[in-house]
């Protein structure tokens, strides 16, 4: 996973900012735990387990999500801060064609996708509060459009910034996530129609979390192949 760092001005070079292994690992832990939490919640609804067990099955993944998210953002901050400090040490430099090259931090599509998910989650959670005026409810409903637009814009910029192998890894990960999601959905509906799965519904949240988790898995598989 990499971010574009340092958008060039007047002929400056473009560098890439790679997430540290630790940050990527915590991102994966968070996403997989979120998936486990969603699954556990659904299971707890359907299965006739004791209340204590239901709570444990749900609380453990949620705790892992929280811990994972905190450690992910701490490590992300450390990665970014390290790069910014490195940049500050270099200072403002003269570009190849003259003129000052201003160092700037530009977060790429992974960061905007995380931002989109967080804003969507926050908007959804706040939207559940009773007695909220309609205009505020509407504002919350459309709030995720902003990070979504930034995310879509950053995909194109990222594509131009990464080298061809990274681009291939990314494409393979998208392909894996897309096809695996379709495959799992088909399996789910087949099991549902066969009566194996009862009272279990797949909502938008589960789908998004599932796709993100599969994207991480796809990127890991593809990245390992070319290592």
């Amino acid at each position, binding site marked *: 996973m990499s971010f574009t760092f340092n958008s060039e001005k007047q002929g400056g070079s473009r560098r890439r900012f790679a997430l540290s292994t630790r940050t990527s690992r915590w991102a994966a832990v968070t996403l997989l735990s979120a998936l486990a939490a969603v699954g556990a919640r659904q299971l707890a609804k359907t299965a006739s387990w004791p209340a204590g067990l239901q709570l444990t099955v749900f609380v453990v993944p949620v705790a892992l999500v929280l811990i994972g998210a905190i450690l992910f953002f701490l490590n992300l901050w450390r990665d970014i801060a390290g790069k910014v400090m490195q940049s500050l040490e270099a200072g403002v430099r003269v570009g190849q064609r003259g003129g000052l090259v201003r160092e700037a931090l530009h977060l790429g599509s992974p960061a905007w996708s995380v931002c989109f998910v967080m804003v969507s989650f926050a908007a959804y959670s706040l939207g559940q509060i009773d007695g909220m005026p309609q205009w505020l409810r509407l504002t919350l409903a459309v709030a995720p459009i902003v990070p979504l637009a930034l995310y879509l814009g950053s995909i194109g910029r990222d594509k131009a910034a990464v080298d061809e*192998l990274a681009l291939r890894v990314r494409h393979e990960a998208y392909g894996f996530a897309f096809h695996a999601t379709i495959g799992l959905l088909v399996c789910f509906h087949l099991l549902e129609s066969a009566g194996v799965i009862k009272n279990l519904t797949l909502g938008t949240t589960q789908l998004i979390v599932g796709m993100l988790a599969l994207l991480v898995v796809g990127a890991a598989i593809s990245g390992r192949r070319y*290592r």
Partner: protein
Amino acid sequence: MKNSLRELRRLKNWSQGDLADRIEVSRQTVNAIETEKYDPSLPLAFKLAKLFKLRIEDIFTP
């Protein structure tokens, strides 16, 4: 596809990172090409050929 990139790089006494900087790709890409896990695109193959002052078919063999 087989290639002689590793030998050519060693002749120049370059590290994978040095070569990666010269052809503007990541070190992982150079490593993947050298270990024949990844076949480069045509523009990248031309870049390599130009850098080593060889023809593409001198570096890569099917």
